[in-house]
């Protein structure tokens, strides 16, 4: 969507390599729901609820949450709750943990939890825990540490962590710790920054951070930064803006954010902006999407880029919502440090 000369804002004269094009990104996010004639709209239909979360959370970081239509979003998200208590990715979709967390995060941000059946959500989520402490994403049984994180995060936001076996949940996550200090999706699976975030985030929420050696993991995470400044997810892979979140939030939780070169990372993220249509892409020159837009601005926020709202590294929402709910994960546990100290 190109602006005419008359519509050119002062922002369009800014150098996208050193400036965050806030207004452009806001216009991009707000305009997403209207683009019903695009392929992208249809092929992401099944995860619309998550798309709403990424859009809303990004607007919050950009200090513009109030520009979103609160009532419309709450009503829409509430209509995605299914008879088994969880949320589908869109209306009439089956419930899945992925969209359940996104729905709860959206409702927390908009203070709309009373629009849904909270007890049914708690029931849906807690029943997904297996005997070995792991969580499946739905009744079909796919196991992944992503779901350990999602379940913990959802229940913590609903103040119902008591409905799962926290000790067992922690036990399973620790089994996914690898020889290089990282974490994978299941025991034995390769260390991957996305899975690391899920494991570290879950341990933070469940109060099991003492199982992490902050120095060993911090170093694995710091090594994700390549010379040009971007972050990758595994050794020898390409950098991607979403790792700005998975890696940085993990480092923030274990108090090692300063081991990343922030300036270089900022350059990389800013370079991924689409200075024409708005939004942020995974890599410079690629097409933007709302997922990378959120993780890009969240990464900037975590590393002190100016004039952005904060994001809690464990819950991925503004910490003010956690304060309102009385959630303080930092007081529950701390990571260990190498016996060297």
């Amino acid at each position, binding site marked *: 969507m190109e602006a005419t000369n008359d519509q050119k804002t002062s922002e369009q004269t800014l150098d996208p390599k050193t400036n965050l094009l806030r207004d452009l990104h806001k216009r991009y996010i707000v305009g997403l729901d209207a683009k019903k004639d695009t392929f992208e709209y249809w092929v992401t239909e*099944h995860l619309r609820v998550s798309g709403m979360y990424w859009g809303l959370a990004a607007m919050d970081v950009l200090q513009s949450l109030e520009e979103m239509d609160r009532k419309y979003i709450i009503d829409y998200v509430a209509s995605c709750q299914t008879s088994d208590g969880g949320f589908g990715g869109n209306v009439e979709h089956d419930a899945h943990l992925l969209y359940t967390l996104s729905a709860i995060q959206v409702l927390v941000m908009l203070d709309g939890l009373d629009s849904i059946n909270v007890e049914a959500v708690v029931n849906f989520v807690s029943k997904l825990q297996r005997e070995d402490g792991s969580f499946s994403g739905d009744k079909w049984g796919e196991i992944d540490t992503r779901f350990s994180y999602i379940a913990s995060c959802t229940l913590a936001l609903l103040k119902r962590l008591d409905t799962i076996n926290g000790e067992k949940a922690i036990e399973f996550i620790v089994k996914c710790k690898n020889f290089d200090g990282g974490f994978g999706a299941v025991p034995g699976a390769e260390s991957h920054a996305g899975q690391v975030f899920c494991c570290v985030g879950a341990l933070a929420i469940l109060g099991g951070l003492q199982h992490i050696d902050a120095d060993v993991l911090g170093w694995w995470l710091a090594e994700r930064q390549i010379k040009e400044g971007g972050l990758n997810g595994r050794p020898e892979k390409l950098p991607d803006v979403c790792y700005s979140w998975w890696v940085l939030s993990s480092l923030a939780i274990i108090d090692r954010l300063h081991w990343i*070169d922030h300036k270089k990372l900022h350059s990389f993220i800013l370079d991924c902006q689409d200075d024409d249509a708005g939004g942020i892409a995974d890599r410079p020159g690629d097409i933007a999407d709302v997922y990378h837009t959120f993780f890009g601005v969240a990464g900037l926020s975590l590393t002190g880029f100016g004039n952005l709202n904060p994001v809690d590294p464990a819950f991925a929402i503004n910490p003010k919502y956690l304060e309102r709910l009385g959630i303080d994960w930092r007081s529950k546990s701390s990571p260990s440090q190498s016996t060297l100290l």
Partner: protein
Amino acid sequence: MSDSEDESDIQYVPFNQREEWKDVVPIPQDDGPHPVCVIAYTDQFSDTLNYFRAILKKDERSPRALEISKEVIALNPANYTAWYFRRNVLEALKSDLTEELAYVSKVGNSNPKNYQIWFHRRWVVEHLKDYSHELSYCAKQVEGDSKNYHAWAHRQWAIQMNGQWEGELDYISQLLTEDVRNNSAWNQRYFVITKNRAIPLTDDVIRREIDYAFSYMQKAPNNQSSWTYMKGLFLNRPYNSIPEFKQRIEEAKSKYVANAHAATLYLDILEKEATKESLEAADKVLDDLIKHLDTLHSKYWIWKKENVARLMQPQ
């Protein structure tokens, strides 16, 4: 757009023109008015999803329900509801899962990183109790993308279910010969040597693995995987359990003068040794890392240097 080889020969016909769907009333998405500019594939999308919604609502588990789930998947293989529904229908119809394995293989070949497809495959294989095709299927995906996370996780699962450990180390060597930087292959090697109960981790095995890592390291000394692997071998044992290891690393460090990984591993050995001499040597290695070997991570190395200084102080 999903690139389904088996769907390309089926021409899309709008559902209201299909005889066998005449009794179904489509349920449109309640999205608001249709946009002015409608593009061809969105017609097919909305039409198919509208009819799918109708079948979902009725929870109709029939042959045409199976067909439409295939069409929805062809349009969007990540539509997890379509996969759920398909499994329900397969169970209700008591369908031949051998055919289903062929189908999920085809769709998987076109969409190698799709979570739903990998899970569906696992479900089919578990029901068939036939793991015999899994290693070759995973190998095919890895051929297309040597680091496909799903393929590797599925491979580990299949091996553990089947006990098919034999040949795995050779397979890994083949991959590393093609690309020594393949971190996934290194991870797999660690998986095999630690999870295969038939081969305990003796000193001899550790020595063999060190030699192995060295031989591949030499092909790409700046790739961290082989170094990380070596360090990983000592996760649950002290470095001095293999006395000659320290010297080998020291020699490697001297040989690969600009190599941060060699220095990093040598540093770890010195730190864990924790004698006056070793810590003084560690301090010198840290200076090298900070000044020129790994300036990107200088903040980390400076912090390490402070740690070592603290340790060197008299108790």
